[in-house]
């Protein structure tokens, strides 16, 4: 067993330069698109382009495409939990008003759920 012999995958130079050019072009695209009003799709477009740029950096510059897949799994796990975290927080904060509206009415003592409570119950002393 030769302990000094470790072969790592070497990505060719032209791949690095192609990725770099793609990143610069995508930066130009995201700046250009930001001056066009796409209505609700402004943020979606910006995030898709940012996601594409991030994937290029992670796959090629960070070697995830060529690494052991465990490293990719760790990275994707981080992204997955980040998405769950943000999406579920948004479900909450964007829909809280609806819940408050339902709950905010005055309590009606004649309401159907109070019918079976005896008049001399603890609530009506």
């Amino acid at each position, binding site marked *: 067993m030769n*302990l000094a012999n470790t072969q*790592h995958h070497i990505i060719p130079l032209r791949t690095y330069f192609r990725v770099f050019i793609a990143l*610069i072009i995508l930066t130009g695209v995201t700046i250009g698109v930001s001056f066009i009003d796409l209505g609700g799709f402004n943020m979606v*477009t910006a995030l898709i382009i940012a996601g594409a740029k991030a994937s290029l950096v992670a796959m090629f510059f960070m070697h995830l495409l060529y690494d052991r897949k465990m490293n990719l799994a760790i990275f994707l796990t981080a992204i997955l939990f980040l998405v769950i975290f943000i999406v579920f927080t*948004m479900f909450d904060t964007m829909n809280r008003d609806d819940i408050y509206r339902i709950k905010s009415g005055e309590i009606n003592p004649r309401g159907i759920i109070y019918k079976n409570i005896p008049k001399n119950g603890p609530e009506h002393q």
Partner: protein
Amino acid sequence: MSHPAYLQHHFSHPDQQYESSKLGMWLFLLTEVLMFGGLFCAYAVFRAWHPEMFYHAHKMLDVTMGSINTVVLITSSLTIALAIYSIQNNRQKDTVRYLIFTLILAGVFLAVKYFEYMHKIHLGQLPGKYYTYAGLGDNNPHLFFSMYFIMTGLHGIHVLGGMAVIGWVILRARRGEFSAEYYTPVELVGLFWHLVDLIWIFLFPLFYLIG
């Protein structure tokens, strides 16, 4: 059986040592993603609450300076990738050269950020209760600048930390400690630096390019 000096006694093979170090680094990067994730979540909530205010406040940021910094960081990601490519091909001098170039680009990034921050401080566009700027009519404009300063500030601290560790591998590379057989510290510092770039890739459109 030959035993290279860089192989620590609790690893059986350089490959095992290399893969373990990298695995550890990725676990650390996972915690970094989640730390920034909390701030991205706060950003999403505030922007959902105040979309108009975010739109008007973002006009106070200089798109040109943000774009320059984006290109600077992407270029620095390329140069540190080339530093690793060089050491994989046993070209120590090129490695040092590319690392120094990366360090300079990191300095340029911070210099641009310094001028942006100074301008904001001068106008009183500061976080929370320190906000004194009167030019924005919307409700709670300080929230935008709170998120701006905290997120770009934490990112800036990461740039500083990245510069420190890049400086450290430059010193070690100049002493000839790295070769095509052993360059794990260069690789791990590279991973950290790419993460700093990754976070900026999201910060740039979210703060400078609200359409």
